[in-house]
Structure formats: structure tokens, C-alpha cells
């Protein structure tokens, strides 16, 4: 009797293992079959276990299967899905190639039901786009711009007319981490912000995290925008370009060794200054006003286990008035990455990254001859691992060491110049970070992504550090020499996102994250200028931090044709920075005394509906929000609206495939005007009318709205290798004069009368661009 029980117990205990098959991991890459370009976020699904994984940002996947024969389904938006029979006993590494859906195939209903990543993934507050998806969205001057399209998503505030600046969930423009192939881009705009530094020809896709930011990212408290450059075609030589009203572009790519290595080089230049050449005035004739971008990438696959990528960006704006004055600024980035596959389960990436932002001013006239130069740069070493333990569990962990150096604007005067040379001390800091993150799907209805990031920001010498009294006057001085660590700022940043899957169409998600920022941009103008000063956390400046909680409901309709989501968030921001009245931010060794520290809060509700398939696609997004700040020394210590506080923000984007040759696009945006400080009275001093201000940001700019249209014509010439298309655009179709600036002045004829006036930037602007591809 006892023996029988014992046998039964043993049988029950071993039940699972007796019946379960051996598990095997397969891994590999998913690529575009026509160009060899890796696909990011492509799905690989086991038909037997119904388990789905996604490729990472290098196109790599790892999937656990039952040993033996299996069927896997590989799919990606815009590509013909494939089904592959594989035998895991003979092979464990697979490279899958998908073919892009040609336009002759009107619609492909992807079999399976895994086009619902937005529902099932634990990640929330994230949006990603491929350049292909947004190419028909109308834009200013016909220049496709990823940053301007991002602004039309919920929770992302528009920077203002024509601006590529953006505000995420009530945060500031300098609180967004913008990464181009992992390198920080300090100033993502050209020409007063009207163009972003991202030439869309060179970009593969972009992912924006507004909340629930995964632990591998850190450094800015508001958002992370992760932009990937294309790798270059490793099948055949190809080119792409365009000629537009204000800029032209050309991209060349091709294999260095077929299927193994490739290159990509892409350039863009504006030619607004060519019009200046037409002037008779010599000084105007010699003036400059242009920018250019250069992106390049090389990749080399040594073998199945090792791939090396080298990519770089260089861009410059150049503004000059004769030889009297010139002003140029630009970013440079360089990234070298090594992907190594230790096993089917362990993927490693090692990156060495450099990026900088510089500006230079040259002034040379009869009594002054000087140069102002400023530079901010960092060099960073990063090691990331992904461990695909099993179908329920993926671990990510890594280390990052980043050295930051700021060379504030220094003035270098020629001898006999009417100004003295000024040298402001450089500032140094090192940030060490380690993170651990675990994506865990214990059951079909729960999926959790949690992790922690630990950072140690070290304020480094050499340097002179001051302490300040309550009025910002320096009261003591300390000098440090060598690269001594002057202060550690230690922080722990917990991250958590969870998704509760109700069924395969709907889920509820929630997230919390803390994130810390040690590099601060000082902007005291309404638009951010290239000359904005940067400071590091120091003895006086504490790291900014944000705590954000968010919850949302995600639902897909009609076989994932429609994606719907509603998210709401609350964000607390600490150690925020503002300035004393009349703060002197340039070439000021007592700069830190001009800063004020306070806090912020932002909350809101975001609605988003997107139609992803069919002739008609597009999205509607709506954000209801509030963003406020509080500083003891500003506005009598009371909370006031942040400038980017927007009650309502609506964007509608519609794309319609009219015929095989014609694609139409339209977008409409509406938002509540910025909070702004207007006068509440006037008085005179020395015969000059001055305005009396009572409340910080107590007024509103008028509401902003605008409609844009576009049409793309692509003649059918499938037999030829050379393809071309025409893009026509109309910006601000109903010619609304949206206020860019509102200001006040005395009437010219009667000083007793004061008047308000507005300046509008762009009325209706047509554009035409000719694009080609070969």
C-alpha cells in the first residue's frame, strides 16, 4: 500500500518533466530581403507554443522552442510574413529575410494575431515609428522631419510654430534624451529650430518613451527618444535623394562585401543663402545662412557571432554677415558598436560613443576683433547584455561610464581689440551607471518589466567652486586641482511597468519610474538658442529628478486595424532650475549664484486612436494636461504654469492612398496657447514707458491651430531601376496668422497710448520636392 502511494507521489512530482519536451533556444536576425537591413521589432512566433518574441534594436531575436520540428512565423509591418519549418536538432541559428510588400499588393491580412504588441507588451508610454510610415505626413517646406511627426503624438507638446523642439508630459525641452545610434545629440535643431538635425534619408526608425522608461536608459527626466540610423544596403548599390525648395539630399549605400558588410552615407544641405548672392550689396552678397548634415555608417559581419558597426553624424549651421560677423554651431557624434552572440541565450553589445556640440562666434570690426567658442562633449563606454533565459523571462543588464566635459563660452580677443579675453573654467563630471532589468511573463495574462538603475555622478576637478548666500552673492571659494572627485551624487532609479492582458484585444497597463538628470541646459529665452549654457550637477546644483506614475487601457479593434489607448500620468519633478531676475548667464564665473531651485508637477490624460492598415490610415491624438512649477523666489512662492502648459492639444493625421500613383496626406493641429507673462499695468521711468508685471505666466497666448495638406505622385515605372516621385505640400492651408510673439509698445505718435501687437511666422507656404531612388 505504502509503495503504491510512494509511486503515485513520485509520478505526480515528475509529471511535468515526464511529459514536457526538451526546450531549445534558437536565435538569429530578421532582415529586409531586398536590402539586408535588419528589422527592429519584427516578431518571431512559434506556431506550436504560440510564443512570440521581438527583434531588438540590432534585429536580433532569441526564441525558446520545443526540440525537434517547429514552425515559426516571422512578420513585420509592411512586409510579407513568412512561415518557416525548422528543425532545432540540426540548426540553432537562423537569419530570416522578409520582402517588403510592394504597392501592387493592396492589403495583406497578416495571419496569426500577434500584431497587437501595443496591447500585450508591458511597455507603456512608448511609441515607435519607421520613417516609411511617416513619409507622406505633410510638413513645413516639404522637409520630412521625424521630430515634427513625433510632436503630433499624445503627451508630446509642440515646440511652437515650425519648431522641432518638443515637450513630453509637461517636461522641459532640455529634459528629453535624444539618442542617435546611442550617442547623445545635444541640440537637435537647425536654423532657429525650424529643422531637426535628423535627415530622414538616414534614419531607420525612432522610439519615444514618455513614461515607464526601461532601466537601460537614463540621464534626462522627461523622455527618451532613441533613433536608429539605417545600416546600408548589403545586397546592392542604391541611392536616394531629393531636390526641394530649400534643401537637397543625397544618400548612397551599398555592399562592401555582399551580405556581410555595407556602407551608407547621406548628406543634406540647405541653400537659403543662394538668394543672398543675388543681392548687389557686397556685404549681403558675402553673407551666409545655411546648414548641412552628414550621416555615415559602416557595418561588418565577421561571422554569425560578431558584427561591428561604426556610425557617425556631423552637422553644422553657418550664419554670417559679410566678414564682420559669423556664427556657426553644430553637433558631431561617433559610435562604434560590437555585437557579440555568446550563445543562443546571451546577446552582448559593447559601445564606445563620442558626441559634442560646439558653437563659435567671430566678430571683427574696426574696434573689436574676437572669437567666442563653446563646447560640450562626452565620451562613453557601454556594455549591455540581454539574457533570454526562457520564454517567460528575459534579463537585461549592463554598465555605462560617461565622461562629460563642458567648455563654457570663452572669449578670445586679438591684441588691441576693445575687449579682453575671458576664460571661463571648464567643468568635468563622470557618471557611472549600472542597471538590471527583467521582463517576466509568468502567465498569459500578466507581463512585467521591472528594473533598477544605479548612478553615481562624480563632480570632478580641476575647478573653482563657490558657495552662495540667499541673494546669490558668492560667500566662499574652494579651489580643486587635478581630477579629484569633489562630490558624489548617488541615485537609485527604480522602474516598473506591468501589463494585465484581459484578452488578446485589450489590456490594462501601469508603470512607475524615477529618473535622474545631471546635465542642465539654461534657457531664459522663449526659443532655445545654440548659445544656451549647460551646467553639470555640482555642490550647488542638485541632480534633477522625476517620479512618474501612469496607468492606461489599451484596446485593438477590427483585427488590430484600429489601435486605441488611453493613458493618464502624474509626474513630480524635483530640483528644477530657473533664474533670478536679470540673470547673467554668459561668461559669468558666478553663474551658479544666478540659479534658483524649485519643483514641478505635471499630470494629464492622453487619448490615441490609430488606424494602421488599409487605404486610409492615420491617427487622432488628444492630450488634456497641466504642468506647473514652484520656486520660493518666483511669483511669491506660489505655483505657476510652466510655459509649455497646454490644457488641450489635438492632432489629427490622415493618409489616403487615392490611386496607385497618388497618395494624399493631411494633418490638423490645435493646442491651447502657451502660458506667458503679460503686463498688468504701465509706468514711466526716465521718459520711457515700462510695463508692470505681477504674475509669472499668468496669461495665455492665443490658441494655435493649423491644417496642412500633401500629395505624393509616384509614376509607375516598375521595369526601370530608377524611380522618382513628386511631393507637393501646403503648410497652413487656411493661412491662419498664429501668434509667434505678442509684445507691447508705446504708440509711435502718442506716447500716452500703449498697444499690443503680434508677430506671426508662417502664413500659407506651398512646397514641392522631387525625390528619386535607384
Amino acid at each position, binding site marked *: 500500500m505504502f509503495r503504491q502511494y510512494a509511486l503515485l507521489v513520485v509520478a505526480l512530482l515528475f509529471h511535468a518533466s515526464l511529459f514536457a519536451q526538451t526546450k531549445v533556444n534558437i536565435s538569429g536576425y530578421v532582415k529586409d530581403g531586398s536590402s539586408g537591413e535588419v528589422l527592429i521589432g519584427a516578431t518571431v512566433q512559434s506556431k506550436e507554443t504560440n510564443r512570440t518574441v521581438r527583434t531588438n534594436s540590432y534585429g536580433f531575436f532569441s526564441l525558446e522552442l520545443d526540440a525537434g520540428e517547429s514552425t515559426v512565423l516571422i512578420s513585420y509591418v509592411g512586409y510579407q510574413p513568412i512561415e518557416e519549418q525548422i528543425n532545432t536538432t540540426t540548426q540553432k541559428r537562423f537569419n530570416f529575410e522578409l520582402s517588403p510588400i510592394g504597392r501592387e499588393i493592396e492589403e495583406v491580412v497578416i495571419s496569426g494575431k500577434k500584431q497587437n504588441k501595443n496591447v500585450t507588451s508591458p511597455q507603456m508610454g512608448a511609441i515607435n515609428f519607421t520613417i516609411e510610415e511617416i513619409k507622406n505626413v505633410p510638413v513645413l517646406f516639404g522637409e520630412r522631419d521625424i521630430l515634427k511627426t513625433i510632436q503630433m503624438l499624445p503627451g508630446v507638446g509642440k515646440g511652437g510654430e515650425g519648431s522641432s523642439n518638443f515637450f513630453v508630459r509637461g517636461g522641459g525641452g532640455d529634459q528629453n534624451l535624444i539618442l542617435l545610434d546611442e550617442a547623445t545629440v545635444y541640440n537637435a535643431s537647425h536654423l532657429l529650430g525650424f529643422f531637426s538635425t535628423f535627415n530622414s534619408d538616414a534614419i531607420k526608425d525612432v522610439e519615444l518613451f514618455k513614461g515607464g522608461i526601461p532601466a537601460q536608459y537614463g540621464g534626462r527626466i522627461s523622455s527618451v527618444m532613441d533613433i536608429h540610423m539605417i545600416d546600408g544596403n548589403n545586397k546592392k548599390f542604391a541611392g536616394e535623394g531629393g531636390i526641394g525648395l530649400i534643401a537637397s539630399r543625397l544618400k548612397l549605400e551599398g555592399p562592401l562585401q555582399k551580405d556581410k558588410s555595407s556602407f551608407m552615407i547621406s548628406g543634406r544641405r540647405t541653400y537659403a543663402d543662394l538668394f543672398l548672392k543675388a543681392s548687389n550689396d557686397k556685404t549681403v552678397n558675402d553673407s551666409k545662412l545655411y546648414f548641412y548634415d552628414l550621416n555615415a555608417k559602416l557595418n561588418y559581419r565577421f561571422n554569425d557571432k560578431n558584427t561591428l558597426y561604426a556610425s557617425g553624424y556631423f552637422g553644422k549651421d553657418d550664419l554670417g554677415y559679410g566678414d564682420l*560677423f559669423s556664427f556657426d554651431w553644430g553637433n558631431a557624434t561617433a559610435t562604434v558598436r560590437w555585437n557579440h552572440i555568446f550563445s543562443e541565450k546571451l546577446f552582448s553589445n559593447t559601445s564606445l560613443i563620442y558626441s559634442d556640440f560646439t558653437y563659435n562666434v567671430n566678430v571683427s570690426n574696426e574696434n573689436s576683433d574676437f572669437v567666442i567658442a563653446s563646447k560640450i562633449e562626452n565620451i562613453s563606454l557601454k556594455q549591455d547584455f540581454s539574457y533570454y533565459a526562457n520564454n517567460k523571462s528575459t534579463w537585461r543588464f549592463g554598465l555605462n561610464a560617461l565622461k562629460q566635459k563642458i567648455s563654457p563660452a570663452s572669449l578670445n580677443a586679438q591684441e588691441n581689440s576693445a575687449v579682453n579675453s575671458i576664460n571661463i573654467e571648464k567643468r568635468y563630471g563622470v557618471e557611472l551607471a549600472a542597471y538590471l532589468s527583467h521582463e517576466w511573463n509568468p502567465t498569459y495574462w500578466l507581463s512585467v518589466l521591472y528594473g533598477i538603475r544605479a548612478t553615481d555622478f562624480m563632480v570632478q576637478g580641476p575647478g573653482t567652486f563657490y558657495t552662495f548666500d540667499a541673494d546669490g552673492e558668492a560667500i566662499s571659494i574652494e579651489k580643486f586641482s587635478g581630477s579629484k572627485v569633489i562630490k558624489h551624487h548617488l541615485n537609485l532609479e527604480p522602474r516598473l511597468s506591468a501589463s494585465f492582458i484581459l484578452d488578446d484585444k485589450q489590456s490594462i497597463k501601469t508603470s512607475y519610474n524615477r529618473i535622474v538628470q545631471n546635465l542642465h541646459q539654461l534657457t531664459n529665452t522663449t526659443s532655445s538658442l545654440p548659445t544656451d549654457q549647460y551646467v553639470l550637477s555640482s555642490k550647488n546644483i542638485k541632480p534633477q529628478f522625476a517620479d512618474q506614475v501612469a496607468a492606461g487601457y489599451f484596446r485593438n479593434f477590427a483585427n488590430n486595424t484600429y489601435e486605441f489607448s488611453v493613458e493618464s500620468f502624474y509626474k513630480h519633478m524635483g530640483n528644477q532650475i530657473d533664474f533670478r531676475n536679470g540673470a547673467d548667464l554668459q561668461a559669468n564665473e558666478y553663474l551658479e549664484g544666478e540659479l534658483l531651485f524649485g519643483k514641478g508637477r505635471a499630470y494629464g490624460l492622453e487619448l490615441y486612436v490609430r488606424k494602421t492598415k488599409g487605404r486610409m490610415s492615420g491617427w487622432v491624438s488628444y492630450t488634456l494636461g497641466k504642468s506647473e512649477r514652484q520656486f520660493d523666489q518666483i511669483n511669491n512662492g506660489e505655483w505657476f504654469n510652466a510655459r509649455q502648459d497646454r490644457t488641450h492639444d489635438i492632432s489629427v493625421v490622415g493618409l489616403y492612398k487615392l490611386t496607385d500613383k497618388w497618395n494624399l496626406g493631411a494633418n490638423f493641429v490645435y493646442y491651447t496657447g502657451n502660458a506667458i507673462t503679460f503686463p498688468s499695468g504701465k509706468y514711466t521711468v526716465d521718459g520711457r514707458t515700462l510695463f508692470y508685471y505681477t504674475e509669472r505666466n499668468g496669461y495665455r497666448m492665443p490658441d494655435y491651430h493649423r491644417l496642412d495638406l500633401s500629395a505624393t505622385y509616384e509614376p509607375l515605372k516598375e521595369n526601370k531601376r530608377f524611380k522618382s516621385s513628386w511631393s507637393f505640400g501646403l503648410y497652413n492651408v487656411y493661412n491662419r496668422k498664429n501668434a509667434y510673439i505678442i509684445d507691447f509698445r508705446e504708440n509711435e505718435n502718442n506716447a500716452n497710448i500703449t498697444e499690443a501687437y503680434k508677430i506671426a511666422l508662417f502664413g500659407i507656404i506651398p512646397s514641392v520636392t522631387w525625390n528619386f531612388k535607384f
Partner: protein
Amino acid sequence: MRFLYIYSLLTLFVLSSCEELIQVNLNEANPKYVIEGDLNDLSSEQFIRVSQTVAFDAPVRSKPIDNATVTVSDDKGKVYTFNSVGNGLYKSSFQPKAKTRYNLKVSVEGEVFESSSYMNSYVDVDSLGIMEDVIFSDTVYSVTLKFEDPRNTPNYYKYNISVNGKDFEFSRVFSDKFNDGLYVTHQVSDSKSEILLGDTVVVERQIIDKPVFNYWNEVLSINPGSAAPANPTSNITNGALGYFSVSSAKRYGFRIKFKEEGN
């Protein structure tokens, strides 16, 4: 800095094409007292003005206050009483002396406002000139004053300007932050209207102290691009607007002629 000024000038040049007058509903704040005290050694009659703010759309520029008690005392204890002469103006007869600190006290309706200003010695001008600038094919004139800036001391300069006999108006302030101890050229023009050929220009140059420089520098830094325009930081206590300055000053006359230096 100057390049920022040029930068914003270029921006405004691009933008100024689409400008129109609009109506903005502005609140009317409770009136605030404004004190203007610009004392200097150019004359033996000194004036201080007391007024109040008015609503933005009021048909006057300010509301004069004539019932205040205004006194100035120096650091030797001598007190100068200012008497109301109407339109918010108060007058006293004395000539301030350099290297002296002067203290202001204004009492009105139970409120007391105080300030103090240090009168620096004059910094002599070496030579005068007229500058012709061509900006986008327009010829604009300004006057220049060249001088040796005293080394190793912070110096602050304020200029008022009068064109063709009109009232003096504030023009510019300068500090020697970037050119301490050098041979410096200050360029002065009329902020409201351009100086043209044939005009007569008188420039009043004052050697001011740091708080007064800060005040006027903040007045100048308020432009349409300021993220948060604020009232310039006054050197007067108790929340009064305006400023109190005692300076050494001199006046210089110019006549804008064809390719010739003024007098």
C-alpha cells in the same frame, strides 16, 4: 552680448514682415509706487519724481503723486529736503559730490521707501566721433566716445541722449566686464528713432554704480524673446518700482555732418 543682439535682430528681421495690432485683455493690477531719482553734478538743481502705475489701456503714461515727503541725506549726515513742484516732481537745490554715498527716503500714505547710491568719480572721455553703419542698405548714424577704462575696478556707464533739442531719454548702459582697463569705445544711438544727417545730438554720460547698472541692464534685456519678463530689480526698498542714482556726469554735443567729425 552683442552677437546675441545681432542674432535676435536677424531673427526679428525675418519675422517682422507679419506684424499686426491686436487686442489683449489685461488685468488691472493694484497701483504701485514708482520713484525716479537721477541726481548728478551737472546742475545744482536736483529732481526726484514719484508716481504710480496705471492700467495698460489708461490714456496717460503714469499717475503723478504730489503728497510724498522726499529727503536725501549724505554720508556726513547732511539732509536735503525735496519740495513738490507738481506733476509728481520734487526739487532740491544742491550739487552732489563724488566719492559720497547718498541715502533716499520717500514717505507717502504711510509707506516708506528707502535707497542709497554711491557717487563715483567721473571717467574722462578722450575723443568723440560719429559712426556710420550700413545695415541692409540703410545708413544709420551713432556717436562714439573713446576713453581709458580705469583698470581693476568695475566701472558702469549710463548714457542719455537728446536729438534735436528733445528731452533726454535713456539710451544705453555699459559695464567693463569684457574690457576692464582697455581703451574703450562706447557707441550710443537713439533707441526710438534713427539719427539722421544734419541732426544735433547731445549725449549725457553718467558714471553710475552697480545696482543702477543692473536696473537699466534688466530694462534693456526685456525683449519679446524673454522667457519670463519681470520688473527690473530696483535698488529701492519696500517693493517700489524705479531706481535711485547719484552720478558724476558730463554732456557732449555732436552735429551729424558729411564725412566730418562732430565737435
